[in-house]
């Protein structure tokens, strides 16, 4: 019993969030263990993105307790942020920069990264040949891939991905599923919102209705 509690790295309890006088969720509780992927489902407007933004600390309009390794996240924000990789609706790719320049900055915020590692990560995500083109000349799916390229580079324990599959083609979906499997294999945690049927073993689903 004790042991299983130790493995629960991210724990949410009694979460309440209201927006525009409409209750999005009430008494929401779940926990994520090492090596677990939590897929968050729900109809449009059910608060999937809001939930992820609350977990990241980008949205503070909630009540309840969120704890990371047994401590409330407010008390260990530095530690939490250094183990978090977040990809939101807005993918965080500057359109005037090239994929290389984008990743150099965004990964550099977390850890030291070599250009060689960035090149191989971009190649892995199928962007070989686009490394030096400005991102506004890339398609939406390719920009999504640029943003996802920081996942192979990341050492983060927790991945929070908001609708990462929307603009991807079949190839891209498969690539991301492989990345998620690898991440879980290393004992990582992931929270993903998507309507896509994920082909990943050990998947847990949270339905927001």
């Amino acid at each position: 019993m004790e042991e299983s509690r130790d493995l629960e790295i991210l724990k949410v309890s009694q979460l309440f969030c209201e927006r525009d006088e409409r209750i999005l969720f009430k008494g929401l509780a779940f926990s994520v263990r090492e090596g677990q992927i939590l897929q968050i489902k729900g109809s449009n407007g059910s608060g999937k993105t809001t939930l992820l933004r609350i977990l990241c600390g980008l949205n503070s309009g909630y009540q309840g307790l969120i704890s990371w390794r047994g401590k409330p996240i407010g008390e260990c924000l530095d530690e939490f942020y250094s183990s978090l990789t977040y990809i939101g609706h807005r993918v965080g790719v500057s359109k005037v920069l090239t994929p290389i320049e984008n990743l150099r900055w965004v990964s550099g915020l977390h850890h030291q990264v070599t250009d060689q590692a960035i090149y191989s990560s971009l190649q892995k995500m199928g962007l070989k040949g686009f490394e030096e083109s400005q991102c506004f000349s890339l398609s939406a799916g390719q920009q999504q891939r640029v943003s996802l390229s920081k996942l192979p580079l990341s050492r983060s324990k927790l991945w929070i991905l908001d609708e990462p599959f929307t603009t991807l083609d079949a190839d891209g979906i498969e690539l991301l599923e492989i990345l998620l499997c690898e991440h879980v294999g290393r004992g990582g945690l992931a929270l993903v919102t998507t309507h896509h049927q994920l082909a990943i073993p050990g998947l847990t689903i949270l339905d927001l209705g």
Partner: protein
Amino acid sequence: MKADESSTYQAFVGTLKRDLLIAFKRKNEIANPFIFFLIVAALFPIGITPDPVRLAEIAAGVLWISALLASLLAMDNLYSADFEDGSLEQLLLSHHPLYFLVLAKNIGHWLVSGLPVVLISPLIAYMLNFPRESYMVLFITLLMGTPILSLLGSIGVALTVGLGGRGLVLAVITLPMSVPVLITGTLAIQETGNSAPLVGYLAILGAMLVGSLSLAPLASAVALRISVN
């Protein structure tokens, strides 16, 4: 913590480099405030008087007001592009102190929008028949004053970054904070004409600069967190 985690200094330099890179790729954003400064300053003699004596009297005010307006115009694109494309969220989710990252953005922004105005100001001053003995003071006060305007403006932009059509709101928030800088800057220049000692004015400007360097990025950081909420 971990060996290859980037230091705050590296994150600071990385953010500064990235912002400068973006600025150089969007050349019009560098040119806009600069050209705006030239146009506003050039319109005063046409609108008021071409008489060199009277121009010399108003030159200090004209230069400072033009610099203030140019800085206000430039502020608009400080955080908006990053907000639109989601880079701002990535910045907020970094484990480094947000103070330094915001400071890096402010410095980068001043280097491309404030510094060119400072550098061109002696030329505009010449056009306005600026008193010869005041050139140095003009240059120094603008060099100290424009970073203050950028740092203070950053707070206003950070507060309004999520709002649409925020031009007027931004001015209403930013201008009252900028007025003391304007007063000190123009007074310092006028006093050189009366051969009065300048140390006091420069000390006040210096104090404002140090104060805004240490406090304004903190306020901007909090404002950004509120705006993305």
